[in-house]
């Protein structure tokens, strides 16, 4: 495996932001608002804070061995066979994140933009593009993300700026007075989706040219990502109100529909789609890359590229059969996904840390 591949700190930050926003930027507000009501932007804030703490924990794992990705680390710490087994389960999880995101993107397009296009075609088109990116390697993915990030940033800024005049503070009142339990409950699904998913990026940290920068980049990335998520949720609530935010499957897109400046700048909601296509596209690419690397580690292959094509087939097939409908997806996110992501985003890293630190102590003494 080519270990000379290096990305720099800034590129890693951008990848982290893209992965945090991912599909949460468009579906998150509805999920959170159904619990947190008018306080749900605080739920997102809480989730982001916990996200930062979670990332701090991941960084501790990174410190255990700076030259190994999580799959190598698992084998090193847990022994060859147990390590491989856990790696396999982790790969399954990563695989699920890829197909979940791919499906979310496909579902969105066929709900709002190209209604008569079959889902399979949408998924195929997106995945072929991702496959090309993955085969080019993480260096190319990160550099491309660096090129496209300004567009995402500008689009988010434009979206917020253009709907700002429609915002009404009364829509989020009363602040922090009622429904505190709901506010906390709203944070729970959001921690699993997207913050626990960031463990997948842990594997990329060793590819950052300066380890110190990687740590900083990870924290900065998740902070910016959390901040953007909070702002978007806040704007959804301020402009659409709780009711409409909850009722829509993709409230951020509806937020885009609200843009109307002097009856002239109108019908530009595709700006939201632009933001989202980029964020989720890079998310799928990076995770797909990690997935291929993981599989190749388990099978001790020479190059991860060997498995990219077969995996792509698997992704398409399982993404198509993933969920019977959109309702199932959102129920899954607020149900099974919570313990599932906690297993790999929280329990696994804790086990790794404990085992790692114990071993470290042993060798020292």
């Amino acid at each position, binding site marked *: 495996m080519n270990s000379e591949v290096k990305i720099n700190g800034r590129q890693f930050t951008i990848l982290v932001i893209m992965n945090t926003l991912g599909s949460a930027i468009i579906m998150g507000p509805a999920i959170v608002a159904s619990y947190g009501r008018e306080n749900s932007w605080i739920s997102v804030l809480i989730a982001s804070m916990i996200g930062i703490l979670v990332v701090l924990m991941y960084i501790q794992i990174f410190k255990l061995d700076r030259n190994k990705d999580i799959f190598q680390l698992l084998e090193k710490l847990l022994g060859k066979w147990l390590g491989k087994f856990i790696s396999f389960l982790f790969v399954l999880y990563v695989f699920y994140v890829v197909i979940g995101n791919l499906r979310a993107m496909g579902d969105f397009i066929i*709900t*709002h933009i*190209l*209604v*008569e*296009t079959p889902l399979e*075609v949408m998924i195929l088109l997106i995945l072929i593009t991702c496959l090309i990116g993955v085969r080019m390697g993480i260096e190319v993915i990160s550099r491309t993300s660096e090129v496209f990030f300004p567009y995402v940033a500008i689009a988010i800024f434009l979206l917020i700026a253009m709907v700002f005049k429609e915002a009404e503070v*009364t829509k989020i*009142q*009363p602040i922090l*007075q*009622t429904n505190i339990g709901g506010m906390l409950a709203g944070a729970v699904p959001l921690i699993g989706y997207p913050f626990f998913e960031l463990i997948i990026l842990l594997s990329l940290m060793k590819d950052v040219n300066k380890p110190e920068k990687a740590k900083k980049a990870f924290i900065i990335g998740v902070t910016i990502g959390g901040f953007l998520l909070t702002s978007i949720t806040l704007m959804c609530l301020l402009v*659409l*109100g709780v*009711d*409409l935010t909850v*009722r829509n499957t993709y409230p951020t897109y*509806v937020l885009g*529909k*609200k843009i*109307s400046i002097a009856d002239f700048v*109108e*019908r530009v909601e595709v700006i939201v789609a632009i933001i989202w296509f980029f964020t989720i596209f890079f998310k799928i690419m990076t995770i797909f890359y990690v997935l291929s690397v993981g599989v190749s580690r388990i099978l001790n292959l020479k190059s991860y590229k060997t498995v990219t094509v077969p995996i792509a087939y698997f992704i398409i097939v399982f993404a198509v059969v993933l969920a019977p409908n959109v309702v199932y997806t959102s129920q899954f996110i607020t149900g099974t996904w919570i313990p599932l992501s906690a297993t790999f985003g929280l329990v696994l890293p804790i086990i790794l840390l404990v085992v790692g630190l114990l071993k470290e102590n042993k060798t020292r003494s």
Partner: protein
Amino acid sequence: MKKNGSKALLLFMTIFLLTGCWSSRELSDLAVVTALGIDKHEDGYKLTVQVMDPGEIAGKDLTTRTSVTTYSMTGKTVFEALRRLTVTTPRKLYLSHLRIILLGQEFSEGGISQSLDFISRDHEMRLEFSLMITKNMEAEKALKILTPIEKIPANKIYSSLQTAQDNWAPAKIVELDELVSSLTVPGKEAVLTGLSAVGSPEVGAQIENVEVVDSHTIVNIDEIGVFKDDKLVGWFNENESKGFNYITDNVRNTIGWVECGKEEEGTISVEVTKNETKLKGSIDSNLPKITIETTIEANIADVECAIDVYDQSKIKEIEGKLKKKIEEIIKESIGKAKELNSDVFGFGQVLSRQEPKQWKQLKDNWDKEFADLDIEVKVKFNIRGTGTITETLLGNMK
């Protein structure tokens, strides 16, 4: 040779990239719907669409055909009626450019919420149309009336509504999301502006209606209709409608007038240029209370009596009178709402924001609480300018 073969195959495969959009529809395949009317029918709903004829609007050689056409169809659901319409329409109906949805009065009295689901669920519908009620007539008839100046009646209705809201005040643009949240959120009831026709709708549907200087039939923006839950229960009159807009901070520009005084005959009119209303909710010894504070700025627009408006004390006097009048309008409006037992002003919501804990107890029998609600009205009226002239003409008349 072998290499050329695979190259040829690759080239061949690029054909698949040239297919273009999957579900593309050209403009010439679409019938652009400008307005939608929903009426009650024994089968469920009667749906009427107003479709524009692009050739008559932007074509080079205009004929005497009407610029819009309407089609009606009945169905068990709105969606079914809409799709069944394809048996009569020449092209598939395209709803993205919808300006207005008219709900028949009879239909509104029977409850509107079921029909709204399709409208908010369909992806082609955008949020930018406004909803109205056709007063004392079916939506179908209203959509058939041709209007002068604006070739597309739906556009005329929409722009009339907008102008009336912005310059005259007893009207309100209600878009779908606002209506839906009024219907679902406790502590606020819905309103929709009415639309009425002067003259016979049948005559209005003839092309002659736009061929004469004085149209036989015209469509008017009427008063505001009040809903209770999802049923139309009554109408505000012009003053009450205005009062409603004062309370809900929806007045942008309007006029008001008062009598000059005891010794002088005639009236003074002012143009309200700015209005800001704040609603405050409080709980006084377990009883909810709402305070309406409205600040109005106005310019004197018309003095029809010999009064010296350059006199500070006179200005104060006029301000005082106008203040009282606005207070009366607001109280009238509240009185009517209480009579209809419908909290259209969203006082309940104000309480839920400002007194969230007590609101929980009030919420369940808000209908009763609203009927006995203590409401205090505070109006501040400031006259800023006197227009381009100072003294009135009447004062110097020989």
